[in-house]
């Protein structure tokens, strides 16, 4: 059973003990677009035991440039259904559950409750706030990621240990840079999606990152910043 992961186990940072933790883990990926398909592909191949993912969109022709699990035959299908078909043949050892749904404060617990970590692959700030509020209230870690143009960023949010989304930003509305407003290249979604999946694996094998990562692939920027929790944060402060 472990033969498939031979090269991953051979990497000393993971090893057999790490692989066993990975295979016992359950994760929830919210969103199945460019970040989501990269994350799912990576986590499924890495042998995460149980993956739940949620998205309510259908595949469009303009998605194929960067949403790595989809092909021309998938246009018009629900992303969840198209991705499920691919993931199921990539690694049949993984328990995969995909749900066509829009994540909200009312339903997030249905999908995320038993998961060890949540990965953000959403395309709007409001859903990220839903994830943040849920995760802080339930002491559950999550991986933040965002992309537009040639740039992207990602970080691990561990409640009461690292800054939450609200500590990081004063932002409150959906008015940021997106693939629609600013275009996007597939190198950045593939990079940030891979980084998010890797941050999740590192958390799951007790080697979490404590940095905020920023990339800009057309300006050769690869930056890591230190993270500081805000003791006065309205969501996670003073606890």
């Amino acid at each position, binding site marked *: 059973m472990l033969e498939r992961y031979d090269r991953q186990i051979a990497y000393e940072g993971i090893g057999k003990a790490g692989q066993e933790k990975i295979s016992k883990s359950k994760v929830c990926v919210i*969103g199945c*677009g*460019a*970040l*989501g398909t990269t994350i799912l592909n990576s986590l499924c191949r890495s042998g995460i035991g149980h993956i739940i993912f949620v998205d309510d969109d259908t595949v469009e022709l303009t998605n194929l440039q960067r949403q790595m699990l989809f092909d021309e035959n998938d246009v018009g299908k629900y992303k969840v259904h198209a991705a499920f078909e691919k993931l199921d043949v990539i690694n049949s050892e993984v328990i995969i559950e995909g749900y066509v749904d829009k994540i909200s404060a009312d339903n997030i617990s249905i999908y995320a409750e038993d998961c060890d970590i949540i990965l*953000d*692959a*959403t*395309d*709007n*700030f409001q859903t990220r706030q839903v994830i943040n509020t849920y995760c802080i209230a339930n002491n559950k870690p999550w991986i933040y*990621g*965002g*992309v*537009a*143009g*040639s*740039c*992207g*960023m990602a970080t691990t949010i561990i409640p009461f240990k690292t*800054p939450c989304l609200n*500590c*990081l*930003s*004063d*932002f409150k*509305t*959906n*008015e*940021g*840079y*997106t*693939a*629609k407003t*600013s275009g*996007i290249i597939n190198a950045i979604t593939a990079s940030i999606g891979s980084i998010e999946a890797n941050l999740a694996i590192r958390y799951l094998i007790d080697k979490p990152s404590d940095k*905020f990562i*920023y990339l*800009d692939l057309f*300006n050769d*920027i690869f*930056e890591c*910043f*230190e*993270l*500081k929790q*805000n003791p*006065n944060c309205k969501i996670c402060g003073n606890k």
Partner: protein
Amino acid sequence: MIKITVKAFSFLEKFITETTLTLPEGVSCEDVLRRLNIPKKDVFVCIVNGSNVPFNTKLKDNDSLSLLPHLEGG
């Protein structure tokens, strides 16, 4: 007066006309955004001397402020 350096990443670069600012004591990151006419909604994180800070953080002499754009896509 205090002197600070500002670095804006990616989409925010277009707003930066000065990289070294001389400002009155007690100014915050938010004040710098206003002074440079950078819409607050475009900025996701303010980084001072290498780590994230709340937007209302007061700046000190020789601080270095980096501004990361609000990347909302996924």
